[in-house]
């Protein structure tokens, strides 16, 4: 049977960055398994620009951004297999995969990095009534048809959901000759990035109809039209506001769902809010040596932060493997250990531009109180299941991991989303294992204006940062430092809140 130190499941932006980082952290035996025909994942169909602003200080297209990483994979001689579907992963990290050439085969890994990305929510999840004709596509499927196959899904378009892919596709369809009549959004705010609303809708005069949804679909063979209606505060159509749009195409951009079927099957614990694994400061799941990053962990807005997060996962997996080696030498077959030792070689997995320059859009810690966790948005469009496939997120875990000599072993601090905050990644921190800086990413449940994002250490507010606006469509971040945490040896819970 084949053996690798680290097997990376998925060759999209997360998998590529994780593999590169693992290799640069000193692990030579790294394998990427990719189910598609090429590396790069969903970036390959994201031909618009806007990628890489944080990582490379450049505006790249999706394929260009992917290429930067693919090139490093090549240069570093990292192994990868395409057209290869991972069928199963055991708790013991036995990976079963399949492709045309090798059939079903097993690989024993010491560490596994989950980087499978996400999928789009389908019409069924919204339970939109009406007929089921041709002409209804999730925005990403349409994006693939247009950008990769060169085919037009239709001529007269209505888009439901203002997730970023939907916004991007409104512009793309317009540029390719279709008429986009409207973008309807169930929520009173958009699920997409502000810049996309401006550049993809406003610049083309496409109306964004907030608090609207599709209530009927007409056409037996090919779509003939949809009925939009305004919705009340609980998402229910308001009688009398119905408006019929004659169209042949309906695109759905109503959220993304992490693809965790493999993770779930192997016993990885899931967070019901993110639909991704629960992880600690090392992005490690409840199964030792199994790490997660990118959209399979939680849906991001910007790919730059997927890469950053994945870089951390790669380093941490490398550290795990090194410890694993040590432990096997000393004969103690431990599973999830990792303390003192950590990859001392943290560094530039993103060529040139070091990430060290984390800037200020990420507050550091702050806080005071309000509550109103309204918009739990579970079924609504947008939010946790964020649309993303193209840009990125403020993610990023930690910067430097040098001098890991502290001996605080074992104790874990719990991270808790509180008022207005829907989840945090990670959910647990072991100070002894954390890097000097740890970025905690989260999303808020509603739009809040002129508020504070506050951080509490148990009951003490240790920081707060003034924000003009926070919205579910944009991932937020708080940076914790090891130094700061070491000053609170009895700390049990860190909570993050949105406060008035």
């Amino acid at each position, binding site marked *: 049977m084949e053996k690798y130190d680290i097997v990376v499941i998925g060759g999209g932006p997360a998998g590529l960055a994780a593999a590169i980082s693992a290799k640069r952290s000193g692990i030579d035996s790294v394998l990427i398994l990719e*189910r598609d025909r090429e590396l790069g994942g969903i970036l390959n169909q994201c031909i618009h620009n806007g990628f890489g602003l944080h990582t490379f200080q450049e505006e790249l297209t999706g394929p260009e951004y992917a290429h930067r990483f693919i090139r490093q994979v090549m240069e570093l001689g990292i192994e990868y297999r395409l*057209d290869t*579907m991972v*069928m199963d992963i055991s708790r013991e990290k036995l990976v079963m995969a*399949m*492709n*045309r*050439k*090798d*059939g*079903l085969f097993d690989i024993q890994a010491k560490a596994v990095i989950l980087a499978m990305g996400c*999928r*789009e929510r*389908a*019409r*069924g*999840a919204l*339970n939109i*009534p*009406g*007929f*089921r*004709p*041709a002409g209804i596509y*999730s925005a*990403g*499927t349409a994006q*693939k*048809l*247009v950008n*990769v*196959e*060169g*085919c*037009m*899904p*239709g*001529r007269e378009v209505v888009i439901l959901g203002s997730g970023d892919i939907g916004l991007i596709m409104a512009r793309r369809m317009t540029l*390719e*000759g*279709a008429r986009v009549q409207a973008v309807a959004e169930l929520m009173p705010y958009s699920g997409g990035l502000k810049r996309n609303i401006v550049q993809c809708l406003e610049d083309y005069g496409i109306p964004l109809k907030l608090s609207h949804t599709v*209530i*009927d*679909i*007409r056409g*037996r*063979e*090919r779509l003939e039209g949809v009925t939009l209606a305004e919705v009340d505060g609980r998402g229910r*159509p308001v009688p009398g506001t119905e408006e019929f749009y004659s169209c*042949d*195409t309906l695109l759905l951009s109503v959220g993304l769902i992490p*693809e965790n*079927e493999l993770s779930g099957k192997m016993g990885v614990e899931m967070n019901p809010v993110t639909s991704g694994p629960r992880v600690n400061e090392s992005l490690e799941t409840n199964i030792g040596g199994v790490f997660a990053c990118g959209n399979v962990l939680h849906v991001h807005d910007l790919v730059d932060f997927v890469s950053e997060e994945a870089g951390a996962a790669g380093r941490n997996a490398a550290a795990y493997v090194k410890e694993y080696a040590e432990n096997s030498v000393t004969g103690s077959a431990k599973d999830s250990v990792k303390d003192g030792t950590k990859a001392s070689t943290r560094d530039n997995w993103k060529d040139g531009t070091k990430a060290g320059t984390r800037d200020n859009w990420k507050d550091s810690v702050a806080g005071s109180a309000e509550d109103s966790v309204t918009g739990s948005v*579970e*079924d609504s469009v947008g939010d946790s299941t964020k649309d993303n496939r193209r840009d990125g997120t403020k993610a990023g875990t930690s910067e430097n991991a040098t001098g890991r000599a502290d001996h605080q072993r074992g104790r874990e601090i719990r991270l808790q989303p509180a008022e207005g905050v829907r989840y945090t990644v990670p959910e647990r921190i072991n100070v002894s294992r954390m890097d000097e800086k740890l970025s905690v990413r989260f999303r808020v449940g509603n739009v809040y204006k002129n508020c504070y994002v506050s951080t509490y250490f148990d009951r003490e507010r240790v920081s707060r940062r003034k924000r003009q606006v926070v919205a579910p469509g944009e991932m937020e971040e708080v940076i914790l430092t090891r130094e700061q945490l070491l000053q609170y040896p009895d700390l049990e819970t860190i909570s993050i809140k949105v406060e008035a």
Partner: protein
Amino acid sequence: MIYESSMAYESNMTYDIIIIGAGVSGAAIARALSRYQANICVIEKEEDVCYGTSKANSAIVHAGYDAVPGSLKARLNVRGSRMMGRLAEELDIPFRRNGSLVVCRDKEEFPELQKLYERGVANGVEELRILGREETLAMEPNVTDDVFAALYAPTAGIVCPFELNIALAENACENGVEFRFNEEVKDIVRSGQCYELHTGRGTVRTKYVINAAGVYADVIHNMVSRRKLHITPRRGDYCLLDRAAGSHVGRTIFALPGKLGKGILVTPTIHGNLLIGPTAMEVEDREGTNTTREGLDQVLEKAGLNVKDIPVRQVITSFAGLRAHEDGGDFIIGEPEDAEGFMDCAGIESPGIASCPAIGEMAAQIVRDKMGLREKSDFVSTRKGILKPDALTREERNALIREIPAYGNIVCRCEMITEGEIIDAIRRPLGAKSLDGIKRRTRAGMGRCQGGFCSPRVMEILARECGMNLQDVTKSGGRSQIIMGMNKDML
């Protein structure tokens, strides 16, 4: 034999038997008749078999306690249910007797439950039992705590309605029955000893006509008989939930039957999803398979009356089907008095799926006796289904991939369907011609992402295998093209 729509008809061709409709009844009759020496043809107005009522129903093999004793429904249901096990084996299709419970929540309604039990006994349903609250909950812990009693029918089962219909048709086809698709019967005229069928494509002659036209069976019937039939389509909305919810109940959970049908049920499907529905709404439009907000809301609400904690957030799709309800309320199988050589198979609503083996048997016997048909020596009663690689051992599977590498290529990630299975679905007799055709045969696109990832890949395979352009690939025939041109060609 498959009739290609581009071929010209042989002008002097007269069939022995034409069956109108390739739904589950038409296919069951075709298969039952294919054991006899006769020149048989099935005419279907859509592009594929299993396109109307047969594709959108509860897929339940009812035990047979619902119908009034002595009715055709009662007789054929019980007989059909008994035949289903063997049929499923012969046709290599999945079928499981998971049992069913009719839930009675109100002590005052208990007499109704008892009546149902007595009916079942009168109809010859075996092993029926009335369970008390505790026993019911022990059997199905997610049945509502309000349950007072339940009627348990261990013989009830679940099938895949697509595979059942497709397999019957394939088997008939392999035994020499001809299928014509995209051909709608517009009129039927008696001509001497024969009937002439005027279709959208010309005229076809036949000695015998079998009307299995589903919600159009009254229209077809009324072309030849003065004793009019009247069918009202009764729409039923359903929601299908992810496989993750599939084990929420093990048995099919019914409410006590109401006026318009058996009420809203909660059942596992044969493929491990959870299905809830249907509503019962009388509609005018015989093509009115659109769901409505009210209907879907009603499904979610009423399903929750008998089964608790249904994870409704895991709905992956919703759909509606039309029951062909005839005014008389029973199945109509036989010749009208004023139309010799013409047989109805009309009013086939629930329990149509359960009854179909018996419907085929009964109809075939009538025609055999009328026409004096003789059995063939070379009838093949078995059919091999699409090879399912995940049913193989690892060694077998790897051997298969070595021989046919397409079996190593997963196309549908949610249902783990390989390119090999999709090619099989296209190339086999009465093969798939559209995305929905592939979906119904292989389940590719039927999973939680509903074809989001795989539909472009499936389109490619279809275009390649059928030698057509991507632009000609349809969702389900007709004008249901997936793409409408190339980039910028409108600019």
